[in-house]
C-alpha cells in the first residue's frame, strides 16, 4: 500500500458543516472527484516506457548462452512473444492482452460512501506493474500501480479540493 498522505481542503470547516445536511448534493461531486483521481492514477500507470532491447526484433539467429536470456527471443508490444529460429524464420505467440489499454476504472457507491476501483484483467499485469513486479520490468522503466498512486497524490488532492469548492459554491447559492 502507498505511503500515508494528506488531503488539504480549503474551507474545510464550512465543508464539514455543509456535508452534514447536503449528502445528496455532495455525492455526484465526490463521484466525479473519485473518477478524476482514478483517471490520474491510470494516466501514469498507462504510460509505457520506451521500447528496450527486450522489444528489439532480431534479424539473425545467435547461439544462446548456457545461462541467461535467450538472445533470439523478444516481446512485441501488442502482439506477444516472438523468436527467430536457427534457419532465420520468425515465429510468434500472440499472447498480448494489450496491457495499457486494459486499465479501467469504476466508481462504486456503497453504504459507506464511494469507492474507486482500478482494474486490469491482463494476467501479466501483476508481474509488470503490480506488487509482484519482476526486477527486469522495473529496470526497463515500468512503474508500479503503487508508485502511480503515490505520484498522483497532488492530483487526488486537487480533485477532491475542487469538489469541495464546488459544493461550497452550490450551497452558498
Amino acid at each position, binding site marked *: 500500500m502507498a505511503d500515508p498522505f494528506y488531503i488539504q481542503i480549503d474551507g474545510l470547516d464550512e465543508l464539514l458543516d455543509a456535508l452534514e445536511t447536503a449528502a445528496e448534493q455532495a455525492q455526484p461531486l465526490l463521484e466525479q472527484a473519485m473518477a478524476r483521481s482514478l483517471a490520474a492514477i491510470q494516466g501514469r500507470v498507462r504510460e509505457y516506457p520506451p521500447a528496450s532491447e527486450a522489444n528489439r526484433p532480431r534479424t539473425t539467429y545467435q547461439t544462446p548462452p548456457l545461462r541467461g536470456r535467450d538472445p533470439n527471443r523478444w516481446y512485441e508490444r501488442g502482439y506477444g512473444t516472438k523468436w527467430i529460429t536457427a534457419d532465420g524464420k520468425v515465429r510468434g505467440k500472440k499472447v498480448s492482452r494489450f496491457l*495499457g489499454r486494459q486499465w479501467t476504472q469504476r466508481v462504486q457507491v456503497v453504504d459507506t460512501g464511494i469507492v474507486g476501483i482500478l482494474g486490469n484483467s491482463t494476467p501479466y499485469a501483476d508481474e509488470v506493474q503490480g506488487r509482484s513486479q519482476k526486477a527486469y520490468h522495473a529496470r526497463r522503466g515500468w512503474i508500479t500501480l503503487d508508485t502511480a498512486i503515490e505520484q498522483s497524490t497532488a492530483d487526488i488532492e486537487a480533485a477532491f479540493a475542487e469538489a469541495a469548492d464546488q459544493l461550497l459554491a452550490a450551497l452558498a447559492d
Partner: protein
Amino acid sequence: MNPLSPEFWGAERGTLLAVLLPAIEEIAIAGANIGLDNLAQVGITLDPELTHAQAARWAREHTDALLDRFNTVTQGSVGEIVQNWIATPGATRADLEARLLPILNENVARAESVGVTEVTRAMAQGEYQSYAEAGIALPPMFSNGVDTAPFGPPAHPRCRCWTRVVRLPDNTWVTVWATNRDELVCQQKLKTPFGDVQGCKSLHNHVLSAGKYAGMTLTEAERTARNG
C-alpha cells in the same frame, strides 16, 4: 495485487464522505488538513478481474454498424466477439483472432487487422465515457469521411494506441495520446483536427481534449498552463 475486502471497506468506512464527516476529531483544523493513514481510506482499491465494461458495451453497440459503413464485414458480429473478448479476463490476441476468423472467411490478415483496430476503437470509446463521467473534456469531433466521432485511436488500421489523462498545472484535466513507444508505431501521414502529422509517433503525449491546449505537446501545455 490483492484487492481489499468489502469487510475492510465497511470497517474502515473507506470513503471520502466517511473521511470528511465522522472524523472531525482527527482533523487538524488549524492547517485544514485531514490526516489519513493511507490511500485505502479514500477508497481506492484494485480488482484484477475488472474488465472494461464501457469498452465492451461500446463494441457491442457500435462496432458492427461502423464496419458495415466501411464495408469491411459482410457477415457475423464482430461487435459481439470484441465485446466478449474484452469481457473475458486473460483472453489473448490469439483468442480474439481465432474467434474472428470464421466470420472473416478465414482471412488471417483481416482477422489481425479487424481485431487490433476494433479493440483499440472500443477501448478508446469506452475511455471517453469514463472521461465524460469525470468531467474531462473530450477530443474535438472529427470526420474520417465515413463517421464523425471524437478524434482518437484508432488513427489507422492496426492502430495500437490509447489515451490517458493528465492534470495540468492550472488544474485543467486533459486527455493525451499514448503509444507503445516502439519502432512499430506508425509514422505515416495522418489527418487530425490539429493538422497533418507524421503518424501516431508524432501524436504521442499530445493533448487531445478540446480547448486551448488541444494539439499541444504535453510539455507545451504544462508550460502554457504554468504561465497562465
